[in-house]
């Protein structure tokens, strides 16, 4: 109806409906409150407009009324809070077994890489009905990955991974925006998400040329950088055995226990000295400045692929700063 003048964003993900429902509730509640307050003002302004010989009646106030109009809004606010918190919790907890897409943002483009090895720039192809988890980092400033049709947004930070997830429900092409101001061409850092039927998606996957899966390129990088000389798949290595380590708690030399999530692995590669697991010596060389973001994601994907079953723990937002 409104081709050039849409008033409601397209809804194309499993989570979008919940957010729209809460939004509609809030709009209705706000409209009701506005109408109530504006109506009172209009009625009072009309009934009690100044007339000669009519004095205002002095009223001190009423504690009962004050308490009423404090407690009732507070109760309503708590309902809104809980409703919003449930949605947020769901939004921030990627389901197990989601397909993973690694995102590297830079001024002013999005580079995306699928587990199967397909690389895309400013475009993301996904099938309908599959959970997709985004593992994102930035090469320079803070960006933000925003797909209005899916109602998801997550800032993308340099120096750590942040995650988001969605399940597309409707084939089509949707906007991908950078929503955190990032410099000159911030408004040009846009792209599209193409949601396809599974069969079409398989055809698209087969059509692309890749150099093998992301984990496979991570594997060759792992050999190339010499990681495999210490991180052996038995207990004889000078470094910890990495098989099955992802998603597990690790006891560190300094007494802390951390979950080996994407950020932990990343930190261990870049500055190993701050994260030494107990029982090992801080002998690993620092790779800060030697491996780029895209090589890092390949290494992380490789280490995750060493887990026997599909990756264990959902790693939450995984944004804690170590």
């Amino acid at each position: 109806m409104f081709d050039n003048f849409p008033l409601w964003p397209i809804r194309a993900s499993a989570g979008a409906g919940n957010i729209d429902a809460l939004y509609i509730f809030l709009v209705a509640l706000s409209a009701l409150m506005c109408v109530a307050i504006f109506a009172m003002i209009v009625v009072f302004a009309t009934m009690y407009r100044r007339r000669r010989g009519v004095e205002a009646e002095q009223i001190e106030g009423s504690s009962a009324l004050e308490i009423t109009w404090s407690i009732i809004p507070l109760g309503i606010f708590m309902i809104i809070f809980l409703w919003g918190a449930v949605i947020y919790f769901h939004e921030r907890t990627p389901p197990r077994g989601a397909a993973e897409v690694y995102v590297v943002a830079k001024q002013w483009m999005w580079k995306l890489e699928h587990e199967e090895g397909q690389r895309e720039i400013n475009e993301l192809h996904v099938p309908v009905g599959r959970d997709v988890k985004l593992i994102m980092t930035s090469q320079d400033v803070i960006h933000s990955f925003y797909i209005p049709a899916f109602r998801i947004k997550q800032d993308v930070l340099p120096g750590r991974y942040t995650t988001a997830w969605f399940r597309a429900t409707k084939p089509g092409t949707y906007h991908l925006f950078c929503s955190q101001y990032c410099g000159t061409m911030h408004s040009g850092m846009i792209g599209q998400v193409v949601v396809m039927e599974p069969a079409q998606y398989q055809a698209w996957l087969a059509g692309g040329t890749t150099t093998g899966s992301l984990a496979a390129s991570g594997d060759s990088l792992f050999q190339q950088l010499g990681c495999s000389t210490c991180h052996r798949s038995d207990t004889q290595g000078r470094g910890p055995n990495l098989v099955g380590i992802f998603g597990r708690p690790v006891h560190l030399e300094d007494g802390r226990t951390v979950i080996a999530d994407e950020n932990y692995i990343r930190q261990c590669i870049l500055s190993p000295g701050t994260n030494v697991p107990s029982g090992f010596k801080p002998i690993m060389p620092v790779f800060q400045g030697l491996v780029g973001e895209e090589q890092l994601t390949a290494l992380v994907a490789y280490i995750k692929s060493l887990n026997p079953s599909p990756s264990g723990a959902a790693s939450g937002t995984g944004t804690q700063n170590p």
Partner: protein
Amino acid sequence: MATAAITTERDNYLNHEYGIRSWLLTTDHKRIALLYLASITFFFFVGGFFALLIRLELLTPAGDLVLADTYNKLFTMHGQVMIFFFLIPSIPAVLGNFLVPLMVGAKDLAFPRINLLSWYLYIIAGVIYVICIVTGGVDTGWTFYTPFSTAFSNTKVIEAGIAIFIVGFSSILTGLNFVVTIHRMRAPGMTWSRLPLFIWAMYATSIIQLLGTPVLAITLLLVVFERAFNLGIFDPTRGGDPLLFQHLFWFYSHPAVYIMILPAMAVESEVVACFTRKRIFGYNFVAMSSIAIAVFGFLVWAHHMFVAGISLYSALVFSILSYLVAVPSAIKVFNWTATMYKGSISFDTPMLYAFGFIGLFTMGGLTGLFLACLGIDVHVHDTYFVIAHFHYIMVGGAVMGYLGGMHFWWPKISGRMYPEGWGRLAALLVFVGFNLTFFPQFILGYMGMPRRYWQYPPEFQVLNVLSTAGSTILAVGYVLPMIYFLWSMRYGKLADDNPWGAAGLEWKTSSPPPTFNFDEEPVVTWEAYNYEEIPAPLAEVPVEQ
């Protein structure tokens, strides 16, 4: 109807001394208020000019009026000028400076020379910022987010940072002066429970200025150090943490919203009481809600960071605390509305602004509930929804409050009446223009249009055109008062001491007041807002018989 003719002009703070020296070296809080008035008006129109260019650029989806870099500087400098050089000093430094001593029955503020110093700091900062603008400007967004501001921007970040660092001290000194004055300089009989609600809100504002602004100063200094001396504080490649900056920045900048809105609430309480001729309904609740806002306002900063990468659980805490700070704001709206019940309401310009304030602040407050709601914020964060929300609070709320207050106290400040008809017209234009400018932005935001976009997809155009159209009406509404206020200083009808029949000590001295405010020290024996004892003014406009 003519007011009592005054043949020979009384000695007052305006004619007490003449000459540029008598202004630039004054320690009279009323003259310093006027110095601030002139300075912030200049910056208001600078910031407004940037805003108009932004709206003109957004008239079409393509980036075609200015370059992308220019656009980024425009919205950055619009924000910084309006927030740090207009809104934060607006009501406190102009109306607060003028009225706090008068309202508590004092001769001046506690530290008159520090008061003058605060204006000079403002001017030094203003000059540095103007130099920053004319030598190329700054493009970091008013928020200075790192590492963009410290490692990537090629613009005058250090100059802007230093200017805002200095202007912060002018704000701290004003706050300090008010706190001490309110504690120590109240006239005999002016107990805490007899203070006008203006003073209560100004007190709460001053507390935030005193406690919050130093954190901003430190944060900006760290940005300058990281940029100039390569310290690694916020930049992850140098071992820093970019989220640390956001925590520090919002620790001040969220309470700063209350520095802007509490003074507007302060004005509303006085105006609503006067034009309904009633004591404010629930005086204690309105007074305490100001304090509650100041206290809770410090505990909600991370609601600006729900998608920034903070932990799930801290997001839950900051969301629930944000709802708590909404309660005292709601209390105020309900109490102003209830004050009208069985009042004797007249519709002079200040009251029209008060109606506008209540309406727009209500809408701004209610849309704040959307943003405090975690599930919704993820979608609308950093979109035009946020832009619309905070303009409803900061323009619909704070600027409406400021303009309403300027009209209300103009007779006291200048000794002249502004033209009432023009005043009402301007109030109407501001209200209509404001809504046309900013309401479409709520829809744009939910549609998904990100903020700070120089170019945008074509489906967003119609709403942007409406918004730009509204901004031109708004501009006319803002230029009009400046013209007729200036006009009235020479040609306006002479004002009585108390033209509105208002309660409050400031109306018990002459208009304009003498240099030391009161001929003899007032002794207060009555409660605030004793409107039953004050006759309503002879109406300018016909009143129904």
